[in-house]
């Protein structure tokens, strides 16, 4: 069963355009030298909107923790249950985290603390999402 499809908006379009080109880019405040994700209108540290730029990151991270969705509410994902929902921290800044279903890793078999790398998965024609795999 396919995943729910993200709908880019004006703010997120550069992010999703990069993902569709198999690149992971995050907002970066040139004033604070701080990355942020998900995208916001302003820097969450200094409040500046003028100093925000898109910056490609390594796509390396670690598994912080996870749950297994056994009885979720999303109709489209019910046939997938049970499935992993993993919290991945970014190596460049561990305060930034992402969700992942950890493709390639069976439910309940998530190696907490293990290194992961970004990968990309098509959820609709021309629309990718960023996913993560155990290295």
């Amino acid at each position: 069963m396919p995943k729910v499809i993200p709908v880019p908006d004006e703010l997120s379009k550069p992010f999703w355009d990069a993902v569709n080109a198999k690149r992971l880019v995050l907002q970066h405040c040139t004033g604070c030298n701080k990355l942020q994700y998900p995208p916001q209108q302003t820097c969450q540290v200094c409040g500046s909107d003028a100093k925000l730029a898109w910056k490609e990151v390594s796509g390396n991270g670690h598994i912080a923790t996870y749950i297994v969705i056994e009885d979720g509410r999303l109709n489209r994902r019910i046939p997938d249950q049970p499935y992993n929902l993993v919290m991945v921290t970014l190596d460049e800044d561990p305060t930034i985290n992402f969700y992942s279903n950890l493709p390639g890793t069976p439910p309940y078999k998530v190696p907490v603390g293990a290194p992961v790398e970004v990968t990309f998965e098509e959820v609709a024609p021309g629309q990718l999402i960023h996913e993560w795999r155990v290295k």
Partner: protein
Amino acid sequence: MATPNNYSWRRDKDGLGVWEHRGKVAVAGYGHSPVDRRWDGVSMDKTLGAYSILACQKAMDDAGVTPDQIDGVICCQGHIAGGSGGSSAQWAPRPYFDPPYDTEWGLTLVNAEWLIKQMRLPNVKFAPANVPTIGEMVGMAAQAVGDGLCTTCVMIYPTGNLEGRYRRGGENADDYARGARQWTVPWGNHGGNDFINTFPHNQYCLRYGGKHDDLAPFVINQQRNGMLTPWGFNATHGIEPITVEDYMSSRYILNPLRIWDCDRPVNASAAYLFTTADRAKDMRQPPVYVLNHSQHNFKQRSTQADLDEIEMWTDRAAKRMYEGAGLSPKDVDIFNPYDGYSVMTQFYLEAFKWHGVKRGDAFAFYAGDIRVEGPHPFSSSGGNLGNGRTRTAMYTDSIEQLRGTAGRRQVTVRAETALAAFTTPPSGGWIMFGKHPS
């Protein structure tokens, strides 16, 4: 009816000092409707509107207040259930009935305007719109009375539920994720306190040691306290006590979160009568004074709140509350934090340091004697887990404990102050009650 726009009532900043109306506002009455699992769609005496009217009448009777004395009505109109959360207006359209049920109002939606009309309250001068959920609404009511916007205010919290799987519709049935959901839903997080708190809970177990099922004694005790609450869902529906074995063999929702870790959505309403301390002295019940109210709305750094953020947020909320009340952890006798999902309650217990519980100590505390008869009657209300998702048990129990009318739940330790909340770690509010005004 004049209601000021942009009324600034929140106490949601650090360092605000002691609340200026400390001990000058009181709760003089409360009332509960029956707590049903769902509204059946046809019983006009069991609609959310009918139950809200009933709760108001009970609260007014409890205080000895007549309709003409009510000059404030504060009613939350976001009633929990719905296709994917938020307003139950998502249940509409439906076949309607004779007045006053010829629209959605009164069926699954209730607001101050509808209640004032149906209850024929002639002297209401304060009835704000856009009222938040009860965790903040109690603060709004207390502040409004303290500021003199009204003197005798009934505050209502309705919680609706209809047939069908809870929140299996609306956005959750959509193939697309828009707005903020584009960052969570493609991977399966449809939002809610369960997601907010289960990840940090797992981190908690890793950081401090312990396992998820160490929550069992707490969950079981919540169920027990619920059965000692005459108006609650468990007590009125013959819910049997659960054992550790029942808990540990129960099915998972978001593994490790089990079904018994989750509260039960219900159809019910509750009302509370706020007034000035001076007026409360002449009312039917002994006043329960408001010593402080505080709110918080912390912004998370990234996609998922982590344990560091949760601990920082709850520490700040605790500091705000204690500072505003002029009290410290050792002064708090009754502690009724929110428990809608059991995995979050340890964060509040440790942040507020109730009975000396520090970070990482909660599971050991749960394993001790937390019964209402014992020395550490934690969450004497039974909370949502014990009474259904009314989100009001914490407040009612606090009031009853200070009045000395909690019946079989009455604690055996001192009961002169009580702290209650409906809150998540990032957003919500707390209120401190006192048997005495200072």
